[in-house]
């Protein structure tokens, strides 16, 4: 395996490229017309155009991707996350074309990809699941309504094919359920081309805790400890931590969950990297939620605390080698936090923000890692997800990681699009977050951008001075005749530009 095609874009394509390069493996990028200048295209050894910007015409074109792999002589395909990563048919097509799929076997993807099948499979292996609809999964609206009463409210409607909160709806009572089923199906259809949904008991006050799994082709399965992913908005993860402060010092509890996670992976003969997601209630009861049969967005925090390069291990596994580590070799050292920096405006309902990144300063220095696929001059479009970067901070303790993340967020500058950095800053200042006192509903129900529970001093008078100085300079500037040929170094250069663009 001396050449790998990366069937993805953005930060994860760059992440995989880096691992390949560090292993001396040549890289093949694929890209849409919108991504000609993307970092993954610039950094790869080879790059091939897939088609127009929309994913269906580019990154979801399995046929074209396999053609390019053959044409370029790539021996393997890494799917990253999203797009084709959890499509069993794509994994199978790779194998059929003599290509190594850097991921699990198609049968494991299929088993875990249909959540109803997944639940049945792990239940059989003795793993507890959240109460909900099981079986084949393609239930009619009538059946869903009938079963809903048995499970009891509140409950969740979830997309059978989906992940990442797409096609997911929360139902409080039977009256609103028909409408919500329709909208969930519509979103699932749009996102995955599959409108099937299933029901699940909503565990209130729950924590979302997941275990990173590595499994080689020789039957060895280990876990790399847990990640706490409870901070979500509309079921989209925003911030993850490793280890979980809820698990904390309870090594027995961690080991128990880890062992169950390994058992779940064994149940589908799992190979390569994967993640077992659990829902955990306040009494430390935990239920299998789903398995993500791919590299996870938040894998860097596990890398930071274990020192294990998960992507390099994925490639090693795909090459047929044994795992580099046994379970005994794996230790959690310190604490890591990941903030997902999205192009969205936290002061305006988290609306996505598009535009050209005109300026950017990355936070750097000790204990900081930034994974990103953008740079100044690159455009954030509405074709793909709004993830600009993953900002990761490591510290000897959770407290030190929080302090470090705070300073990194303060340093980070991105101009040209709005970002959710202020959201993360508020979160880092929140007493409940600092105390580890949060569940999956925290962001939506007990967190506000307006009045946080922190006691940080604000400086409205400084904001007033800045706005006033801007106004003053603008007035001075318009009153003044700009002498021809003189280099205009005033602050007002950009204002004119801004106004031309936005007014």
């Amino acid at each position: 395996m001396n050449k790998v095609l990366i069937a993805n874009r953005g930060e994860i394509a760059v992440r995989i490229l880096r691992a390949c390069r560090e292993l001396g493996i040549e890289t093949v990028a694929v890209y849409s017309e919108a991504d000609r200048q993307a970092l993954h295209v610039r950094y790869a050894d080879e790059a091939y155009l897939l088609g127009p910007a929309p994913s269906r015409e580019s990154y979801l074109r399995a046929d074209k991707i396999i053609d390019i792999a053959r044409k370029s002589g790539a021996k393997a395909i890494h799917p990253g996350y999203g797009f084709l990563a959890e499509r069993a048919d794509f994994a199978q097509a790779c194998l059929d074309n003599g290509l190594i799929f850097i991921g699990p076997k198609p049968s494991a993807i299929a088993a875990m990809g249909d959540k109803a099948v997944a639940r049945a499979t792990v239940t059989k292996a003795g793993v507890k699941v959240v109460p909900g609809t099981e079986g084949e999964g393609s239930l009619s609206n009538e059946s869903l309504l009938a079963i809903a009463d048995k499970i009891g409210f509140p409950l969740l409607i979830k997309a059978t094919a989906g992940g990442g909160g797409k096609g997911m709806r929360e139902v409080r009572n039977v009256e609103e359920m028909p409408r919500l089923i329709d909208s969930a199906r519509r979103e699932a259809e749009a996102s995955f081309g599959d409108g099937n949904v299933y029901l699940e008991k909503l565990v209130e006050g729950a924590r979302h805790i997941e275990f990173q799994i590595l499994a080689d082709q020789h039957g060895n399965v280990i876990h790399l400890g847990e990640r706490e992913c409870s901070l979500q908005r509309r079921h989209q993860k925003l911030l993850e931590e490793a280890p979980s402060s809820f698990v904390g010092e309870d090594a027995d509890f961690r080991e128990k969950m880890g062992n169950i996670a390994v058992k779940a992976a064994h149940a589908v003969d799992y190979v390569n990297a994967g993640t077992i997601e659990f829902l955990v209630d306040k009494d430390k009861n935990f239920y299998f939620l789903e398995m993500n049969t791919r590299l996870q967005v938040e894998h860097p925090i596990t890398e930071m605390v274990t020192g294990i390069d998960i992507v390099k291990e994925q490639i090693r596994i795909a090459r047929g080698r044994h795992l580099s580590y046994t379970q005994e070799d794996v230790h959690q050292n310190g604490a890591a936090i990941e903030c997902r920096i999205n192009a969205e405006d936290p002061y305006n309902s988290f609306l996505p923000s598009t535009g050209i990144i005109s300026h950017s300063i990355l936070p750097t220095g000790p204990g900081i890692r930034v994974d990103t696929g953008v740079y100044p001059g690159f455009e954030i479009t509405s074709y793909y997800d709004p993830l600009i970067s993953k900002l990761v901070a490591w510290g000897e303790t959770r407290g030190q990681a929080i302090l470090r993340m705070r300073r990194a967020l303060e340093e980070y500058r991105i101009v040209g699009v709005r970002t959710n950095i202020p959201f993360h800053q508020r979160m880092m200042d929140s007493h409940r977050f600092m105390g580890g006192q949060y569940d999956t509903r925290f962001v939506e129900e007990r967190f506000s951008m307006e009045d946080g529970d922190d006691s940080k001093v604000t400086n409205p008078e400084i904001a007033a001075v800045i706005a006033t100085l801007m106004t003053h300079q603008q007035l001075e500037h318009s009153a003044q005749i700009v002498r021809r040929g003189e280099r205009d170094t005033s602050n007002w250069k950009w204002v004119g530009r801004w106004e031309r663009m936005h007014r």
Partner: protein
Amino acid sequence: MKYVTNVNGKEYSIEILDDHQLCLDGQILDIDFVSIADQPVFSLIIGGKSFEAYVYPGEDDYQVLLQGRSFSIKVEDEREKRLRTAGGSTISESTEYHLKSPMPGMVVSLPISEGQAVTKGQVLVILESMKMQNELKSPRDGTLARVRVKPGDNVEQRQTLLSVV
């Protein structure tokens, strides 16, 4: 030049004395104010303290992002303020609000019909973009008018979708 600056409802009196000094609510302070790399990012050193803020001009105000906080700020010079106070109301209060699409996307639904009353914060349009459904809300009370789109329409960034009068 003297200004009256309103931050989230609280007023500050700010007099710019020269390029290096201003008077804030009676206190004279040294200032050094520059934009960074020709970007809408400003560094202010005031009385020795160093601050940095993003500034976004709005329709009739600025949004200033400082230390992870957002401030909505209106600046008036004293003359303007006197005129406005004499007149009894601002111009902006009587104007219509035109909801523009913040990004390209597809209209999923319009929960309210034309002519209906809307309250501040009420959802006017659900727009699908970047694979997510986004709620566009009314910034004030009023009546829904001139709805120019229907569910299923693809819209461009900054396209006017409807008005609140």
